[in-house]
């Protein structure tokens, strides 16, 4: 895995700020990280807004409604992460 702070050169764009484990886990295939970020930005929350629950994601759902769905999907799948 590429640790946070060590994404350099061609991979310098990999982590916009903090690098949660779910991103780092994919980092041996850097394009997988980039596509994951693209998908999450379109379907959930852009990564740079993730830690700021006050940010307006520009969705028809509120941030809390989005997180309720995310949490429920994770719980039904018994996903601890």
């Amino acid at each position, binding site marked *: 895995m590429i640790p946070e702070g060590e994404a350099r050169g061609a991979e310098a764009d990999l982590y916009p700020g903090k690098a949660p484990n779910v991103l780092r886990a994919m980092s041996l295939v850097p394009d997988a990280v980039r596509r994951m970020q693209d998908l999450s930005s379109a379907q959930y929350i852009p990564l740079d807004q993730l830690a700021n629950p006050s940010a307006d994601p520009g969705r028809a759902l509120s941030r809390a409604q989005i997180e*309720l769905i995310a949490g429920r999907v994770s719980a039904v799948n018994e996903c*601890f*992460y």
Partner: protein
Amino acid sequence: MLLRASGEAHDEAIDLRAVTEGAKAKSGLAGGEALTAFAEASVRGEREAISSTRERVERELGAAATVDAAGVIGNFERMVRIADATGIPLDRAVALVSADMRADLGIDEFGGARSTRPVRGLQRLLGRVMVRMMPLVLRRFRS
């Protein structure tokens, strides 16, 4: 944890049991029961229930919200598989601030919990302090 933080950021009272208990617990959010029912039906692949719960979300929250909800469901169906397949531990700061909540909601009973070092002793106390500080941090984001 992000659900709790979102509630605190917007001064909304949210019953977090809606995450683990679904529609049995009322989240306190507009359309919350419809959204959790749609999420459950989708994850379980219950075709008839997917249709009926999707229509309910559209009735209660509108077409745009229905599209957004489907997107979030799809996104997390992918994310949980990445997390579980790679066996990643919870990020340490998240583990600390969510320790009490995970215990209360029964999330520590999930199999994936084995990948994360338990939060005990001083770290548990530190996590509780961090939780208390969270509203102050969120207020800074708002201003």
